[in-house]
């Protein structure tokens, strides 16, 4: 039987990696991800997890090792944050086209400069175009569950792609929460051993990581794009199967009190927990506000988002990363571009919050609601609470 215990979310992610019977972990410590790989190195050293732990000299080497170990048929995990992900960048772009399943936990943290170790989404957004499946967790239970689900999605023979599982640095990674730790038999039922459909094997050699001349580069990129779009069905399937075994149902897009809402606040990650409380308080005041949260960021869940926004008059799209010199943050850009090609035309504005670990409070959401529900559209994103 599953046990509910108080546990730091980083450690819960590490426990999920252990329960998944991971074969190879190649990682370099970086705040605020460190506790994940630190705990894994302990589990390996104590013989609780029979895995190869490769203490590499950089994140670039971490991802290189992961690509190699996955190509050799090993269940592979790594974790990073911020500058570490930036240093991985070259290899991050390589993994999807090579179709190597890797689970990467990112404890999201701001990119320098100025140097900042706290939470926002600038790290993951710097690799949003690379071709990885990408999910965002809201709380500790979801972080553990999505780690298990990530292995299942990545290694699904019809997907065979790397996946990033994002948790907000500190505000999620370092919190102690009551978390249901599933037992091994349940996990084994959900997650079969990794059977790679592409494998480096000296008896049947292949060459991997080839040159793609102009005559085939476009086709190789398009093939990866096709498979990434198709992966959504497999994510949904993995969510449904997860529910069958563990009794917790996830969706690619989550909604909260949105049915009759005139104003929708749309966001990703752990701030949605605060936002739900703000929504409840505003609802108590008779304000018709609801919430939509994107759990699956890549592939972008177009149909599910449109369905969740079908009745909204006003839409506040909330980003935790600002694209400098651009009218919107990444979520703002994508949602507005999706709406442009649909027959939905809510008054949509984009709000940037919580950069570099600045607190995002219920009052922030109430302010955003007031602004958004006025019906006024701002063509440029607003940096909420900026002191200028």
């Amino acid at each position, binding site marked *: 039987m599953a046990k509910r215990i108080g546990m730091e979310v980083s450690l819960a992610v590490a426990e999920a990696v252990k329960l998944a019977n991971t074969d190879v972990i190649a990682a370099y410590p970086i705040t605020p991800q460190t506790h994940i790989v630190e705990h894994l190195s302990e589990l390996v050293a104590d013989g609780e997890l029979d895995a190869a732990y490769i203490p590499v000299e950089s994140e670039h080497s971490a991802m290189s090792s992961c690509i190699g170990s996955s*190509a050799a048929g090993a269940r592979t995990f790594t974790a990073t944050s911020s500058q570490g992900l930036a240093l991985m960048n070259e290899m991050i772009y390589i993994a999807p*086209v*090579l*179709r*190597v399943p890797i689970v990467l936990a990112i404890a999201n943290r701001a990119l320098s400069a100025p140097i900042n170790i706290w939470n926002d989404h600038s790290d993951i957004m710097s690799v949003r175009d690379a071709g990885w499946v990408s999910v965002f967790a809201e709380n500790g239970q979801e972080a553990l569950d999505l780690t298990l689900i990530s292995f299942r999605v990545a290694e699904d023979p019809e997907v*065979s792609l790397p996946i990033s599982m994002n948790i907000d640095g500190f505000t999620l990674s370092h919190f102690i929460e009551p978390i249901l730790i599933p037992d091994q038999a349940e996990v084994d039922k959900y997650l079969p051993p990794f059977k790679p*459909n*592409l494998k480096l094997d000296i008896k049947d*050699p*292949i*060459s*991997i990581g*080839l040159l*793609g*001349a102009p*005559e*085939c580069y*476009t*086709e*190789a990129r*398009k*093939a990866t794009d*096709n498979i990434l779009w198709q992966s959504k069905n497999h994510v949904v399937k993995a969510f449904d199967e997860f529910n069958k075994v563990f009794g917790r149902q996830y969706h690619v897009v989550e909604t909260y009190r949105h049915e009759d809402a005139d104003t929708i606040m749309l966001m990703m990650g752990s701030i949605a927990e605060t936002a739900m409380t703000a929504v409840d308080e505003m609802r108590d005041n008779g304000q018709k506000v609801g919430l939509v949260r994107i759990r699956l960021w890549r592939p972008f869940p177009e149909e599910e988002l449109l369905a969740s926004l079908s009745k909204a008059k006003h839409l506040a799209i909330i980003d935790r990363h600002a694209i400098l010199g651009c009218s919107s943050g990444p979520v703002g850009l994508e949602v507005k571009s999706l709406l442009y090609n649909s027959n939905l035309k809510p008054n949509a504005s984009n709000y940037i919050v919580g950069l570099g670990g600045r607190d995002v409070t219920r009052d922030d959401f109430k302010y955003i609601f007031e602004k958004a529900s006025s019906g006024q559209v701002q063509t440029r994103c607003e940096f909420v609470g900026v002191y200028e």
Partner: protein
Amino acid sequence: MTKPTIDALAKVGDLPLGFTAKPGSTMDFKTGDWRSVRPILDREKCIHCAFCYYYCPDGVYKDMYDGKDDATKYFQADYDYCKGCGICAQECPKKAITMTLEEV
């Protein structure tokens, strides 16, 4: 409107999973076709030392010696695969190899 025709190698759906290749697949291509200079050997100067053979990064030199006739004691570059890097000419101790501009 007609689709632009392109010189593509394979359709999206026909590419191997993970963009991999089987060993020896360069046999299907003449990888030397972008060479701009080719190594030309002056057999008079060649002492059959095999520096060119070992230094060539593409391994395109072949030993022509038949074991009897001294006139066959030289190495010949395979121009289907030589990329024209000039390393053989640089390393040849007898300066027997000259890099010559390809005729277009």
